[in-house]
């Protein structure tokens, strides 16, 4: 875009007219819609504005990562729902990546049966609707034995139709200090080793980039020892007709997690396969010819090139997974859509306000992923070789 005058930037008289008409049309539409909405809202006696966020919600939520009582506000409900969404999305992203990597590598393996199994999985998982897959897994989760004949062992884990009971980390005392201290050390290590690597590649001097990570390791160790290791493991035990201790994963969370993982995993598998086959065969042969080992070939030659192809679509799959976690509503997992666009909307009747907040949350997620992608593309563009 040049630095021309206003008219030039607007594309001359014709461009100005077209854009003026667009703006005019949008304004008219907005005025008409808001006029209708105003009249309808008044006629139905719905209150407006975001004041309801400070009011008491009055309903319970089956799973809350932060303390929550029915007497808490709708703002708190939003937080609980958003955290539940983030929980299932992060769990799904990790397992979907693992499943996708394995299946993607199997798709190009030398073993025919490996290829066959991976292809079968990919073609089934990505050609059936996710809602149906979620219902199937939910049905399976409910078919597990009842608590009285639970699968599993005392002090480790239990599988039941009322949920899966797992060991849980507990934090106390100075845990916050230890955790945030570790995070700070790891972030610092990230930047230090990036800086060291740059020094090496640009000036050919300086210490090994691995020093950054070594320092981080020592730092994390010190953070935990210094605070008296405030992290332990809490295991589930049988107690009466149920269980105590540990983390309870509801059947809904488990079904949603598994379904999201397998569904997105099939798309990731195709991305991984595409990335692996996009690296020219000669690259691997050349790397071996100059004496690199199999591991070095993969790590230093194949993967860096494949990653450039893999990461951008991978990020959009992560985003899709996060959006798809909203399907939680069909099996009653209390994610953001279920508790806020569902229960809260029904109780307050303020559809516009609740839905706009939910949409803003998802938009914020997409925006941060796009920002990350721009950053990543700028980074990896340095590596791009002219064709």
């Amino acid at each position, binding site marked *: 875009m040049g630095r021309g005058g206003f008219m030039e930037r607007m594309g001359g008289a014709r461009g100005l007219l077209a854009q003026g008409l667009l703006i005019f049309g949008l304004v008219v539409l907005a005025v008409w819609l808001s006029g209708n909405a105003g009249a309808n809202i008044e006629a139905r006696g719905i209150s407006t504005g975001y004041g309801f966020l400070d009011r008491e919600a009055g309903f319970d939520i089956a799973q809350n990562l932060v303390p929550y009582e029915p007497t808490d506000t709708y703002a708190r409900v939003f937080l609980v729902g958003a955290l539940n969404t983030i929980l299932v999305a992060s769990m799904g992203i990790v397992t979907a990546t693992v499943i996708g990597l394995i299946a993607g590598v199997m798709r190009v393996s030398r073993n025919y049966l490996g290829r066959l199994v991976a292809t079968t999985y990919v073609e089934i998982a990505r*050609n059936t609707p996710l809602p149906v897959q979620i219902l199937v897994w939910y049905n399976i989760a409910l078919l597990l034995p009842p608590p009285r004949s639970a699968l599993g062992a005392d002090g480790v884990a239990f599988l039941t139709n009322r949920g899966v009971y797992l060991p849980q980390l507990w934090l106390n005392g100075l845990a916050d200090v230890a955790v945030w201290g570790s995070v700070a050390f790891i972030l610092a290590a990230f930047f230090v080793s990036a800086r060291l690597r740059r020094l090496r590649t640009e000036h050919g001097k300086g210490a090994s980039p691995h020093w950054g990570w070594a320092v981080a390791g020592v730092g994390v160790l010190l953070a935990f020892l210094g605070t008296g290791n405030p992290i332990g493991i809490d295991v589930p035990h049988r107690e009466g007709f149920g269980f105590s201790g540990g983390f309870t994963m509801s059947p809904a969370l488990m079904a949603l997690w598994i379904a999201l993982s397998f569904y997105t995993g099939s798309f990731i598998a195709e991305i991984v396969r595409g990335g692996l086959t996009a690296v020219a065969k000669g690259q691997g042969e050349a790397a071996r010819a100059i004496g690199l080992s199999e591991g070095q070939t993969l790590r230093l030659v194949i993967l860096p090139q494949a990653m450039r192809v893999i990461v951008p679509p991978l990020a959009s799959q992560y985003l899709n997974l996060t959006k798809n976690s909203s399907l939680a509503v069909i099996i009653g997992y209390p994610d953001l859509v279920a508790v806020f666009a569902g229960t809260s909307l029904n109780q307050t009747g303020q*559809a*516009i306000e609740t839905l706009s907040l939910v949409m803003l949350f998802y938009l914020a997620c997409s925006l941060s992923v796009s920002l990350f992608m721009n950053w990543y593309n700028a980074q990896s563009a340095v590596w791009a070789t002219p064709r």
Partner: protein
Amino acid sequence: MSDAAVTRAPRLAPRLTAWQWARQNLFGSVADSILTVVVAIVFGWLVWHALDWAVIRADWFGESKEACKSGGACWAVITARWRQVVAGYYPEGHLYRVALAMLFLAVAVFPVVKRDLPAWSALLAPVGVIAAIAILGGANILPSVPTDYWGGIMLNVLVGLTGAIFALPIGILLAFGRRSDLPIIKAFSIGFIEIIRGVPLITLLFMSSVVLPLFLPAGVNLDKLMRALAVVTLFSSAYMAEAVRGGLQSVPKGQREAAHALGLGLLQTTGLVVLPQAIRISIPAIVNTFIGLFKDTSLLYVIAILEVTGVIRQALSDFSWLGLENEGYVFVAFVFWVACFSMSRWSASLEKQTGKEAKPAREPA
């Protein structure tokens, strides 16, 4: 571009005997052989049990689950309700209208499937869809059938195709808008596309069922299904825009310049030179977008529109069919799988075809 991609000689695969093939593909190394045996046993066991349950020991007909005694799948739950599965609660005497509507939908997709028709044939698409909706609804000529009675697989097909066909022109406009030099049009297009793509469909469907009525003038009552159709169309237009944008990007700049040199104006250049090539290139991406949209129609039951998943869930909550979730969901998954898998194969073959056609059209290196 490098010569290698253009002049690569076809690699002739050496003929292998069965034994050689097995050595290479199944027993390449010790680890490979172990993997092969383990996978063969587990996979074979799974496939055998699935077949045994779904076909060999299955019961196909009956009035309730009591009729299913063989211990396999009880497909009677589907066959006993096949009419709902296909068309929802559409009145029995009027089922011919469902068949007729499907015929018109087939006409609507004809210009997409058969790609060498004249440009005017694109008009068949909206005409076919509107005719199908008119036939189903009655349009004051046939006895009226309210949309509450529409349902089943018919509704998935109808919503998917209507959404895709009306989304395509909007998507094309948005794609041009996104590449436009006019800043306001560009900002509007990007904003629309990214906002729609940034939120889950389910929130938009909630919008259609609870927010949209608020924005309509008092007294205007737009049908629930029509509201959902409008939202589905807007939703997929953002994805269509991205599919078409890919095609627009791959039309060489020389084409536009050559058209200008011939004296064609902006509209002619776009309509006669750029767009036909762009659409042709992006058809595989458009089909893939449609596959996604078709799968998404299974969400409609959340806002109480009885497409096939909703019909099946209703059947499963019927006392005489309780506990047959496996059969119900496997059936729904199978229906979608057959449709989506064949469409994805077709789109992949199109992609190969356009790839071949596009090669000679490229400028020499």
